């Protein structure tokens, strides 16, 4: 994104821009998700209005909440492993920031352009497990411990179907670079017709479903929220956290939801692009500069749709039991995604 700008920006300026961009890319979706879905959609689904007092239609509620959390005391339990206890939420939040790094938002609007971007994203996505596990362990609370262990078991079980679901996309696109995957979808054509490009959700629908289920589990949203499980484990690994450390977990939860939705939209819905045939573009160099502005907005829209679905499911379903979830992951999702890979590979070779 920097190279295209008319003015030459020194390195520190570029870094600053990246940091600000990263903060915006993580916090803006998180805030919007919390307000739009957690505050408003959930309330409306339950026949109530949600926060209405702070700002017009309660839109400033989130800032009030953040202010409240920042004021609260940062409590560390007496028997807790204090240093690790304090680091844990940072690990969770940092993993979210690291995740956003590889996501392309436009033809030139990216933070880094890894050639193995998919690989990196999936690897970093599981770093938060460590944060959650140590949070559960170091809290010196039995509920937290159970929650942390559940989270570890669950997140590991769902890494695999997620990775396998993505493999189908990678095979089809022929690249692990996210930018290439976006290009492949937007320049592709369906039986010679390129009106809507070729979003992989059409051919990889099974993969998409599995990916979304795995994301749901990865984010510990209902019906896979056993690590938190308010009614059983009293918020699981977060039980003992308060103040701004709780806030970090909270932001982490919803920011990660947004980031995973971004990844899903990149992998399956054509990412920042709109079908290039509309404008007669064929390669990435031909794409107009304004897509660097429009691209993030398009991404944002797609992300909102996907997180909307994630939240909708969350507000409607009861939760599984831990063993049922493991069974579901290992007996249903993994075989299914393996079959998906096989079919994709065969079709790829044959066609």
């Amino acid at each position, binding site marked *: 994104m920097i190279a295209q700008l008319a003015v030459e920006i020194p390195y520190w300026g570029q870094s600053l821009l990246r940091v600000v961009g990263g903060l915006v890319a993580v916090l803006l979706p998180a805030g919007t998700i919390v307000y739009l879905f957690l505050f408003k959609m959930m309330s409306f689904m339950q026949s109530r*209005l949600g926060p209405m007092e702070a700002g017009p239609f309660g839109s400033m509620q989130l800032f009030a909440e953040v202010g409240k959390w920042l004021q609260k005391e940062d409590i560390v339990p007496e028997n807790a492993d204090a240093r690790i206890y304090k680091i844990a939420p940072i690990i969770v939040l940092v993993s979210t920031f690291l995740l956003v790094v590889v996501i392309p938002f436009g033809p030139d609007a990216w933070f880094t352009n890894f050639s193995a971007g998919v690989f990196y994203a999936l690897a970093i996505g599981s770093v938060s497990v460590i944060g959650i596990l140590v949070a559960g362990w170091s809290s010196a609370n039995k509920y937290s411990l159970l929650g942390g262990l559940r989270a570890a078991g669950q997140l590991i079980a769902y890494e695999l179907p997620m990775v396998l679901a993505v493999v189908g996309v990678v095979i089809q696109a022929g690249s692990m670079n996210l930018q290439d995957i976006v290009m492949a979808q937007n320049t592709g054509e369906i039986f010679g017709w390129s009106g809507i490009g070729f979003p992989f959700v059409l051919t990889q629908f099974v993969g998409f479903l599995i990916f979304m289920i795995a994301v749901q589990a990865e984010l510990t949203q209902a019906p896979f929220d056993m690590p938190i499980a308010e009614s059983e484990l009293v918020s699981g690994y977060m039980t003992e956290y308060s103040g701004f450390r709780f806030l970090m977990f909270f932001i982490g939860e919803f920011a990660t939801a947004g980031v995973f939705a971004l990844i899903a939209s990149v992998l399956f819905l054509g990412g920042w692009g709109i079908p290039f045939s509309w404008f007669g573009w064929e390669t990435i160099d031909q794409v107009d500069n304004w897509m660097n502005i429009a691209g993030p907005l398009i991404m944002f829209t797609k992300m909102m749709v996907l997180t909307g679905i994630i939240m909708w499911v969350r507000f*409607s379903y009861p939760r599984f039991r831990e063993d049922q979830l493991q069974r579901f992951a290992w007996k249903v999702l993994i075989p299914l995604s393996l079959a998906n890979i096989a079919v994709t590979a065969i079709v790829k070779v044959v066609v």
Partner: protein
Amino acid sequence: MPKLPGLIKGLGVTMGTLVRTVKDGANTVQYPHAKESPPVRARGVIALREDNCTACMLCARSCPDWCIYIEAHKQLAPPRRAGGKPRQVNHLDRFDIDYALCMYCGICVEVCPFDALFWSPEYEYSEPRIADLLHDKTKLGEWMETVPEAPALEVGAEKKK
């Protein structure tokens, strides 16, 4: 017709509620701005008509929580008819109801033989200090304004004597 999976139906219910809330408004009331009006019979707060009270102590005696405190002294009131003898009446010195103790059973209102106690549906009298929940006879008297008329009865009810 094939049965829809329950998972889809569940999503339908929540989405249906969302649409209904957007269209018809929520079922909740935004409390300080809008208020629900409680039914006429609602037992909110007890009002006292001081003139009717004879300090007969029936309410205080029948209160299960012992939350009514009455003190009175005897004095002479002007005669009912001109030229009659002055009557001796109990003049109320103190009539307190401790709402921190009261359990809103309504027995006192019921036993009162002189129609001095009434239920009012008023409910907004919470206090930051528990001691302020002790309402004295002036405060109880002020509630009289909020006492509604008794509602008409349903078909088939026996007329009140």
